């Protein structure tokens, strides 16, 4: 239990998990749409504020889990309720709580039917997502991991676009199928570790190589689908396109991060030898994802699809950074998870705002809106620049660190990822050019109204983070540094011999 640091004070993490759930339960009793909106905004807003003490109270110098709470749950099976944060999960947790109020704002007028049910889904989502990032008991993790699927399924299936049933079922089946093997892995770990589900105890154990490889593959399938890594990505464009704006934002900003978070939390510490063995393949898939995502995004005429495929490329960068297994790479990857959450979330919000006006996501029907929506295109411009890693914005720092880590590992590998960066500029500028300028035969857009105050309020915080992370990322990197160093120290200590051998094979 030496990995735990129990901070005295209110049980903040539990409050963050159960407050939205309680809010959802209360909404069941209410039958007033406007009240449901304000209520959800208030609950998510309070949750965001309550997550701030976690940031201020977080000890940056410690790699232990902090704000830990531990309660017995199902004692016969030794299942406990254990939650805690460390440098890897802290930023993801904060991003989750902070994005949720803006999802509510983005759905204010977008969702017109069954508002209460929609808001209930959002709140349950928040509980589950916060829980996934802080759970330290594998059963708790798994339950919450699966629990997310249901509200998300409903969000797409009820409030989605024309092909919502197809998209929601595809999403559900894909992610469910991925996690079935995860359950097998969990049970094996439970038995091997003296019938304990406690996650930190499962790390850095000397499992046999075969067991590690099998375990890694089980993890990999579950997490690679969630990321999504090429070639497990096909559920993503469908889900994104059909989901309502808030659903797309949650999917892109938070759900995708769970895959990469899973790699860092489980795959690396529990199966280090297998990680080293599988590293070349995962890196290869990452590069494939980067390039494939880029080319496919370039060919899209549907803005949501374009951004969805761009996510495949961006998440490829994240997995690249994780699996080069050095400080720069992993720190860059964690930062890039946040960046992608901020930037892509904001881009989906932007597309949602156009959709609310034109009821189309087609790029061609949104050409030349720049003249009539100058405020909107200014926001869109900054987010697009951020998305392709314009220097001075958040994604640049993430990409820079990931590529620096990759260059340290292997120059050819890093050069192979560069076309992805070029393509990112190409598809983002293409979209931006079409939306802002269009051509000489733009449809008449003069009836469009520019953003209202609510929409500006929704987008502004994202813009602040774009430049805040872009210009002084050190504030954010400080939070994760100790945990990442600790992870890598443990990793090298564990497999120093093995790494040397594998290194020879790889080069």
């Amino acid at each position, binding site marked *: 239990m030496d990995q735990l640091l129990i901070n005295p004070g209110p049980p903040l993490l539990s409050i963050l998990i159960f407050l939205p759930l309680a809010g959802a339960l209360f909404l069941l009793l209410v039958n007033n749409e406007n009240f449901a909106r304000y209520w959800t905004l208030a609950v998510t807003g309070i949750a965001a504020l309550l997550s701030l003490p976690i940031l201020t109270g977080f000890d940056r110098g410690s790699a232990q889990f902090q704000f830990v709470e531990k309660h017995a749950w199902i004692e016969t099976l030794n299942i406990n309720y254990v939650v805690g944060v460390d440098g890897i999960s802290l930023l993801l947790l904060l991003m989750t709580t902070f994005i949720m109020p803006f999802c509510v704002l983005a759905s204010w007028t977008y969702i017109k039917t069954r508002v209460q049910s929609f808001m209930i889904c959002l709140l349950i989502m928040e509980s589950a997502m916060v829980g996934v990032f802080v759970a330290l008991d594998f059963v708790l993790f798994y339950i919450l991991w699966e629990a997310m699927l249901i509200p998300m399924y409903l969000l797409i299936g009820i409030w989605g676009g024309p092909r919502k049933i197809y998209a929601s079922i595809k999403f559900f089946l894909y992610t469910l199928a991925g996690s079935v093997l995860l359950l097998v892995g969990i049970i094996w770990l439970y038995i091997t570790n003296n019938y304990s589900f406690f996650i930190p105890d499962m790390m850095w154990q000397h499992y046999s190589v075969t067991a590690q490889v099998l375990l890694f593959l089980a993890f990999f399938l579950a997490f690679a689908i969630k990321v999504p890594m090429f070639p497990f990505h096909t559920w993503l464009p469908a889900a994104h396109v059909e989901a309502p704006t808030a659903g797309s934002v949650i999917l892109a900003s938070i759900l995708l991060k769970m895959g990469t978070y899973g790699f860092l939390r489980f795959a690396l510490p529990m199966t280090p030898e297998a990680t080293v063995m599988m590293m070349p393949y995962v890196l290869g898939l990452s590069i494939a994802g980067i390039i494939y995502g880029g080319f496919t995004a370039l060919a899209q005429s549907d803005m949501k699809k374009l951004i969805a495929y761009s996510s495949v490329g961006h998440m490829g960068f994240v997995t690249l950074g994780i699996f080069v297994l050095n400080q720069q790479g992993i720190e860059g990857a964690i930062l890039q998870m946040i960046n992608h959450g901020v930037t892509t979330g904001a881009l989906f919000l932007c597309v949602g705002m156009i959709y609310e006006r034109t009821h189309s996501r087609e790029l061609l029907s949104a050409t030349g809106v720049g003249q009539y929506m100058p405020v909107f295109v200014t926001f869109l411009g900054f987010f697009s620049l951020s998305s392709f890693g314009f220097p001075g914005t958040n994604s640049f720092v993430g990409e*820079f660190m990931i590529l620096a880590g990759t*260059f340290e590992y292997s*120059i050819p590998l890093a*050069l192979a990822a560069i076309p992805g*960066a070029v393509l990112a500029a190409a598809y983002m500028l293409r979209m931006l050019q079409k939306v802002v300028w269009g051509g*000489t035969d733009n449809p008449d857009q003069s009836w469009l109204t520019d953003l209202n105050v609510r929409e500006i309020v929704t987008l502004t915080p994202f813009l602040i983070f774009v430049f805040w992370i872009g210009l*002084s990322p050190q504030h954010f990197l400080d939070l994760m540094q100790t945990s990442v160093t600790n992870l890598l120290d443990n990793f090298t200590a564990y497999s120093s011999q093995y790494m040397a051998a594998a290194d020879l094979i790889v080069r």
Partner: protein
Amino acid sequence: MDHTTVHSPALLIALLIPLIGTLGVMFRGKEENVREGISSVSSILLFITVCTMIPKVLAGKILMFNMFNLLPGVSVTLRADGMSMIFALVASSLWTIAVFYSMGYMRGLNEHAQTRFNACFALAIFGAIGVAFSNNLFTLYLFYEVVSVCTYPLVAHHQDEEGYEGAKKYIVYLTTTAKAFLLPAMILIYVLTGTLDFATNINTGIFPDDVNRWVVTMLYVFCLFGFAKNGIMPFHHWLPGAMVAPTPVSALLHAVAVVKVGVFCTTRTMLYVFGVNIMDAFNLGIPTAYFVGFTIIMASVIALSKDNLKSRLAYSTVSQLSYIILGVALLTPSGVEGGLIHIVNHAFSKITLFFCAGAIYVATHKKYISEMEGLGRTMPFTFGAFAIASLSMIGAPPVAGFITKWNLLVGSIEAHQIGILLILLASTLLNAAYFAPVTYRAFFGSRPEGEVFTGIKEAPLAMLIPILIAATISVIIGIFPNIMMQFVKAVTG
């Protein structure tokens, strides 16, 4: 020379003036005179701010201002040294002239979206000043990209098929090369050296002694092509394509902000990242000189074949930019001096030429050289200025271009490169061949027979005065080269 570093907020002020000017232009866009007033006041303030830094820089100090620290060794930091001053002075002084000229041009032609035009113009200058005052590769890259993005609306200004086509080519070439070459080069340099800060002299560079020769060579080639604004073939196509823009933009693009940003970045990187020692040791200089020599000759030959005046000027720019890189690549004192001073000389002369082309268009709506027969007699000042600037391009005394040619020729002899000498001489002949006929036909040709009196007269004063100022400066810096040469000497030490 000892280089002491001084903290100087003047750098930040210089950077913010064009940015604040942009905001002012955007918010007071409805009132034409206020808007143009803001532009001109900002340009003059900028020029004065840059001038205040001159004494300290000439005293051998390096002015610094740290803005943001991203990662260890990666920051947004401004610096002013001899080399920054060369470009900052050119960019800020030409902005003052260009503001007045574009006022005359845009109003003379009743162009649309003049507010957007003025705002983007100021933003481009913001980027150029940022490039001039960059203290490291990251800051340089940041402002380089700012210039690329902010000039897109200027190139696409007319919003017709041709405009979009040119602008598309422009942005595709510039961002693709920057992402494909510059980004990996920058990151790899960071991985190898742990920093992106420029060295404080042109000799040492920032690489450790035991660095791998082939990695450095690869990085060098990446940097050479990554800054595609420098117009080196084969990545020069964006430049003639961008000719669709209104003429003040062409002047800004092809004389000041964009192309000079390209060559400035290239030479800054050659001298302060790689350094003369490494370039010499790994034999990177002379091959570069021959490589850009090809661009010099090829672009001149293409220029000969162009009847559209602006196209001819564009290819002339492609050719002349390579002079700058060629000079620096010779790595001898005279070569480097000749190259760097050409940043100034070419800027003033080429902006004169473009201003003239714009004045001719406003006065006569003629774009083709073959239509300009005899126009010199009705527009003597415009074509007179054109003649003076052409002489500078050709490299005849006493106009500025002569100083360049002289130094480059001395440099090529110092480097014992007869081939380079021949390239320079051949290009001089070619320059004469494509510039002299323009002036000759204008003054001595005759208007087509049967042309009724068209009422052609000189362009408005708002355009004519900037033309004459730019032409006069071309002559002055030709007769008193030390005005700018002192900064170049500060670079070579």
